[in-house]
């Protein structure tokens, strides 16, 4: 059996080297793979809280100053809000990651790659080829299925691809948790481009309702991409079955579609005589819950995997 190289750095290792999930590691990388990186989780939590604070701040500022913006200024402000929302996570991440640095260039690259894929492939595919806006609203069941099969799969695959075909094979992708980090970056990049596109297409944004949409999109896209990233991370460092990665993408697509539909339902209350028809707050609540739940579950899963690994090593051998 040809297992005497490290699966991360591809350096030859001793025959009795550490093994994990059927894969061989050198000492250094074995130690890295099972690292917990609490900074990642703090960044995730910080992102959620930060986004909510961001919404609150904008609401307060708009309430206080009642700015009357229009035209290009409004578009610029909208794009600025979308970028700020993305930068919140990056800022938290870089701050938390000071001690155990992930190559910053890589994280930023994946973020930009996610944005580029959204602009070059995702948005044209959904808007022009599938024309989701034309037919998704027509029937509730068709809308849900369409949101999963088309919106979910296109978006989640692209965010997955932004990680899988860039940093994933590199030696720097050397921890289980790296999948979550890069996935989140890719998802935020995608979300930012979506937001900028919406703002430009609409020719501006109503600041109060608009900032909520920006934050909801960012939280949701980051969460689902983080989930796919978790599957990617496990796939690199452990022997997982063939369905593992497709399952991860499918799960993310499913959640994405359900979320899209559910948000639509929640934010569209029944019409009354005065009109109404839209309330953005339930959508924000839903996105917050989804993001918190996703990162919470991922945190727990990775924690547990690492613990099992460690205890397995203690029990001797660590061989599957």
């Amino acid at each position, binding site marked *: 059996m040809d297992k005497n190289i490290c699966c991360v750095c591809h350096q030859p290792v001793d025959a009795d080297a550490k093994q994990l999930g059927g894969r061989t590691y050198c000492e250094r990388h074995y130690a890295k793979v099972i690292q917990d990186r609490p900074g990642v989780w703090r960044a995730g939590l910080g992102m959620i809280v930060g986004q909510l604070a961001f919404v609150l701040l904008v609401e307060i500022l708009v309430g206080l100053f009642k700015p009357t913006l229009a035209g290009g200024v409004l578009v610029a402000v909208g794009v600025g809000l979308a970028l700020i929302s993305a930068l919140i996570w990056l800022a938290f991440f870089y701050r938390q990651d000071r001690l155990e640095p992930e190559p910053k260039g890589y994280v930023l690259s994946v973020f930009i790659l996610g944005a580029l894929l959204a602009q070059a492939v995702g948005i044209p595919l959904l808007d022009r080829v599938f024309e*989701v*806006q034309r037919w998704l*609203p027509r029937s509730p069941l068709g809308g849900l299925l369409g949101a999963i099969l088309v919106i979910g799969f296109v978006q989640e695959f692209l965010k997955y691809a932004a990680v899988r075909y860039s940093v994933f094979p590199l030696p720097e992708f050397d921890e289980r948790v790296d999948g979550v980090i890069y996935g989140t970056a890719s998802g935020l990049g995608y979300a930012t481009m979506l937001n900028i596109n919406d703002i430009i297409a*609409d020719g501006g944004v109503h600041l109060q309702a608009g900032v909520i949409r920006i934050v909801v999109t960012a939280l949701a896209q980051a969460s689902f991409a983080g989930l796919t990233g978790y599957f990617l991370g496990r796939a690199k460092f452990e022997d997982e079955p063939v369905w593992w990665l497709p399952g991860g993408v499918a799960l993310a697509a499913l959640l994405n579609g359900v979320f899209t539909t559910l948000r639509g339902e929640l*934010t*569209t209350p029944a*019409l*009354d005589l005065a009109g*109404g028809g839209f309330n953005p707050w339930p959508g924000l609540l839903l996105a917050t819950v989804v993001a918190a739940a996703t990162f919470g579950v991922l945190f727990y899963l990775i924690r547990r995997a690492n613990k099992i690994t460690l205890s397995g090593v203690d029990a001797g051998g660590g061989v599957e």
Partner: protein
Amino acid sequence: MTFLVALSCGAPNTLPPATPTVVKPAQATPLAVEEPETVTEETPETPTFTGDDRQIRQNLLRATVQIFALVHEGRQYQPLWTGSGTILTPSGLILTNAHVASDPDPNYRPDALGVAITVRSDDTPELRYLAEIRAIDYDLDLAVIQIVSDLSGNAVDPQQLGLTYVPLGDSDTLELGDLLHILGYPGIGGETITFTEGVVSGFTREPGIEGRAYVKTDATIAGGNSGGLAANLSGEMIGVPTQVGYGGAERFADCRYLADTNGDGVIDENDNCIPVGGFINAIRPVNLAKPLVEAAKSGATVPATPAPTRPKPGKTSGQASFSDIVFAPAVDDDDQPTMAVTQLPSGATELYACWEYAEMADSLTWEARWYLDGEYQADVSWTPAAWKGGESGSWWLSISNENGLIEGVYRLELYVEDRKLVEGSITVGGVASPSTTSGEGLWIRGYVINANTRRGIEGALYIVLNPGITVGDWEGDEKQVYTFAQTDLNGYFELPYALERHQSYGILVWAEGYRPVIGDDVLIGDEESPYDVEVALQRE
């Protein structure tokens, strides 16, 4: 009941304005005018006809038009018959046969003339314009008409038309054996232009016409070519192919019932027939038309010949005749009905009955009897009285009630010398119109906006279903829709009908690319009317 009765002061002996003003030449015929045609002076920029034969034929082709004699059927036009014509000036002066453009008998006059221009030789002509008669001579069977508007009735500027035209030639120079190009639309609608070549085979004379009355040709021309174009090899018009024998007892040599012109769903002899057959081999020389053309151009009135009287099918000659009664909610300044109706809504305050008459005399007694639901209404009827409208023209009667006419079926019978000439009836009321609730209902208006930008959505639909139908029940049948409105470019809409109070409706707001918003059982209470709403839609 308090009815007011009005009687028309309706100008006797005037023609209905829908009929083109007819100007008739005085005596049998003005003679040929010596001066050459002045047509070309008007437009130096148009092509001259030298050289290329094919180009000449192309020019002739484009200058030949199909003319539709049209009558109003309700608010629509129906073709009565078709013929051909030739454009004489870029501004749309057209020469045709008198029997194509009109009819000496007012009963057969079309309400309008449609002009279909030739686009390509293998295409049916395109009905583009409406024309009016500028000069007409029934004895010569020639008429000059002028394009005045597009089909919607919007006036066109003749100077902007820039139509292909044919200059007038000199028909007196024709000699036996000269070659002729003959073009026209042979008969029923929808066929393409035909081109025939022939030679001049003779000339005929007619009493009252000095010089050549007809140019005979060896070419046989289908009946519908009447009014078309006969040109010499230089591309100049030398005559109008004309159905000889027209003006006798037979209106058309071969007239068939081909189209459901009266819209009763059946094609029978009640429809207007369309001339399809008969052959022409006579050409009315263009020199006879020149005075008419000049008259039409200058706008001068050509004194009229009395129209020949002919027996009218189905009616006794020499006796008074009334057209069918047309009911209308109002008449215009020319005493013509504003629109023909068979039903008036509840609350209508006035009802007009209009008809045209011919061969009446002031010495005759006439009577008008109104019936409401079969019951004679003495207070609004006209007891026998002497006629004061002269020989022919149009007339109307009206009944009115400030508080709204009593609902029911109104029947009007018209008698002359105790003989019933015509009757007609109309229903007032019985039409459930949602607008009747406007007084106490709730008017709804407002904006449909994009939730994220708070700006209006253009083209969004605000649909209110009939009470008792939920949005889920609705199968897309418009009969289940109470009312709806579409937003304008600001996202603003106004429902055309008020909603009834203390009634629940299903409401659906829809726009492409947005998630629809639905409200079932939206209760209309005692809100102040009009009521402003705002519906925010979010993009999918």
